[in-house]
């Protein structure tokens, strides 16, 4: 799974690296544009284009019928019934491409969340590191040592929450540069990457998880924790990021969907896709 995740991640890195120092809206526009084109392509290849065209024409024809025969109640009602019928048929034609689109879109969203979902840390900023132990391990009776790389300061002693099998620390960034956090549990070590950057967009992996296919799909930012280490997950609480639209802070996914739809509609004629 990690092999697939790392390849997929590299593709996104390749796309976004040129825009990393630019306004995040540029990167978002690029991502939305590519997604729009990608969705159009899937739609074109997987849908019944002729059928969609026919259905849309029929809907238009029945709309015209309603206008022309607006004095004839029975004809108007019949036309409305036909519009409903063809609408359902249209939904049916759209269902197949949706099925083809849903998995890649989910995977894209997961990746985009690493780029647009979190703020990177900067010098002087503090953050929480959460280590969750596997079931059966008590944080009070487990020997856990945190060794951050230079430039990271541990600000609090470990805070152990027995009930949640969790150990938390508050750390602070003293110096900029690539960093990682080494967690030693009963002598075994796991490494969590930490993103300290001044770039406007950069890849941030908030959670490192245990070997588990479902978890690895959801959190593909880092290689999974080795099975024999009694850690379930290692999480860094990065600040949530918002896209700034005239001072209005919106979630990136709203911007992404709106821009993708705009690009999709803008290019459907150019790519000769009937939506």
């Amino acid at each position: 799974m990690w092999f697939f995740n790392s390849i997929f991640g590299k593709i996104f890195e390749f796309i976004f690296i040129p825009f990393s120092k630019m306004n995040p809206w540029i990167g978002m526009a690029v991502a939305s544009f590519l997604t729009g084109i990608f969705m159009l392509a899937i739609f074109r290849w997987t849908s019944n284009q002729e059928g969609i065209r026919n259905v849309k024409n029929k809907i238009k024809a029945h709309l015209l019928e309603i206008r022309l025969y607006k004095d004839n109640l029975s004809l108007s009602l019949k036309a409305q019934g036909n519009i409903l019928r063809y609408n359902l048929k249209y939904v049916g034609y759209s269902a197949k491409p949706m099925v083809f689109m849903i998995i890649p879109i989910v995977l894209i969203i997961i990746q985009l969340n690493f780029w647009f979902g979190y703020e990177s840390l900067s010098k002087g900023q503090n953050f929480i590191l959460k280590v969750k132990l596997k079931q059966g391990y008590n944080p009070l009776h487990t020997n856990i040592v945190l060794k951050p790389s230079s430039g990271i300061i541990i600000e609090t002693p470990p805070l152990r929450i027995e009930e949640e099998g969790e150990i938390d620390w508050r750390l602070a960034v003293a110096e900029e540069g690539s960093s990682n956090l080494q967690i030693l549990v009963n002598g075994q070590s796991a490494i969590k990457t930490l993103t300290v950057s001044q770039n406007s967009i950069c890849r941030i992996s908030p959670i490192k998880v245990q070997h588990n296919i479902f978890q690895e799909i959801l959190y593909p930012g880092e290689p999974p924790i080795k099975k024999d280490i009694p850690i379930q997950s290692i999480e860094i609480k990065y600040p949530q990021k918002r896209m700034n639209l005239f001072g209005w802070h919106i979630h990136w996914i709203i911007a992404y969907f709106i821009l993708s739809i705009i690009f999709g509609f803008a290019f459907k004629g150019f790519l000769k896709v009937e939506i």
Partner: protein
Amino acid sequence: MSPFNRREFLKLGLTGGCLIAVGGSQDIITRVFGKAETPKKVIILGLDGIDPHLLETWMNQGKLPAFQKLRSQGDFRPLRTSIPPQSPVAWSNFITGTNPGGHGIFDFIHRNPENYIPIFSAAATEGAKRTISVGDIVLPISGGKVNLLRKGKAFWQHLEENNIPATIFKIPSNYPPAVTKQRTISGMGTPDILGSYGIFNYYTTDTAKINEDIGGGRIHEVYVIGNQVEAKLPGPINSFKKDRPEASINFKVFIDPIHPVAKIRIHDQEFILNEGEWSGWKRVRFSMIPTQSVSGICMFYLKQVRPEFKLYVSPINIDPGDAALPISTPKSYAEELEKRFGAFFTKGLPADTSALDNDVLDDGEFLQQDDFVLKERVDMFEYELSRFESGLLFYYVSSTDQRQHMFWRLIDKEHPSYDPKLASKYGNAIENIYIEADKIVDKALAKVDKDTILMVMSDHGFTPFRYCFNLNTWLKENGYLRLINEWKQGQDSFFLNTDWSKTQSYAIGLNGLYINQKGREAEGIVPQGKTKETLVREIAHKLESFKDPKTGEHPVLRAFVAKDVYTGSYASEAPDIILGYNRGYRVSWASPLGRIPKNIIEPNTEKWSGDHCMAPEVIPGIVLANRKIVLRFPALYDLTATILEIFGIKKPKDMIGQSIFNLRRP
């Protein structure tokens, strides 16, 4: 729909690109009203409570080089304060260029003559006039509002009419901000999110040592179960619900079983604090109904983890990024500051003096909190100075006032609360804040050019507050106030035990005394006219003659008859007598709210130990300027006239001051 042709697509792309570029850029900065260039520029630093005697002493000792430099460049004078010398009154004098008769603010506290209940003088809140109810939910059709009760036109409104730009930063007595296109943000008088002057919350397992019925705070008894504490943060009254319950947010504290550290989880936020650490600002949102919520900001302080758990939460300030109440003009000014500096104190008096007074915070902890206030003020001052190009900049600092109120006991060995041990540790708190103020003056001096007039002013000075004068008790002892049940004396507030049918006079507020006037007060007995006039003069004379049997001093130095000292349209709303206390004396804590203790004079054992609600001649303020001051005894309202003269604006008729400079002289 026809597909776009290439040209249309390019147009769309260009427009979209521009929108993206603008949308993602910094927000459009609010432009200050008025023309870009004015021949003269004015910077006024309002340092609340700076005392001329202390200032001169430390200037002469070389501890305040910037003040000294400013004095040498221009002048320094004690500044005549208001009657009474309370901040809302004094700053209103300065804002409007009138005395209280012209602006209608006579005290922190006024009274409702219909029921003798004390009311805040500065602002009044009106609920929605029309509502509809859907089940349990009450929906307002017309919005409620907050009204500024200060009358008279503010000097920046005069500037606005003459196209002179101004930025007015946190001037007291301007909540809600007066309607203007100038950039203003409200200061003293701005409530917390509960609509009060600041209610902190304190969560502890050790309630035995704390009086639960304290002013300015709420004590919550909590239990540590399995190293966890569950608690509620109370919020504003939910007026969207029929029974108007208190909104609240649940939060949880996780404590390490050994280490002195805890994690607080509130909403989706988590933060870890070591014992003795502050959290910085945390945003909290109180849900009212599914579509409505109120946002506030507060700070957590983990005072102690064990053996007893102690967590302090500051009063919940109005969130400047999403203000539930009006705090700035334009509204975007507060938002702009929030975006640049993050959340910041919006409550009028930011440092929590109640928490210190009630031993919830100790001296060191209070100073830490006030340091946050000061740092924030300094950072914002630098920002405002950096973009100040024309017109007027007024900038206000509150820490100078707050620290003198709270730490006077440690420089005054005669004070009942003097503690030599604490004095050795925190005895320099007042001197230090003067030194910090000096640094602010230095920043302003660096900005001054030949066309800039810099004025540094305070609204009043300071003096020790050693003894409390129970004014209502004095009235009772002298036969002007009667009780229903003598044996209940001292037990009730709000005059609940007062026999109004036999009461001629009563006191509400910090300096005000009212005659129980027939036709004005609900149960008035003293007819207006000669009888009242005679009574007023008699009481005033007796008060000035009264001696403290222990010290032989006169607690009341001056008893001003309102009609002798106030002019203007609102003079008739004033208390009948305004008391000016002697150095060391002030009205008691009980009297302003209508409580009548047994003794006329009591020692002040509170930490609130310095004060200024005395006679104006005891505590003048200061004015320093980089120009020669020609007025021998300038007053607050003279500064207003001075501002208008600098900008060539004719003084309106209702302004009573005159310019302190001779600007026509070369």
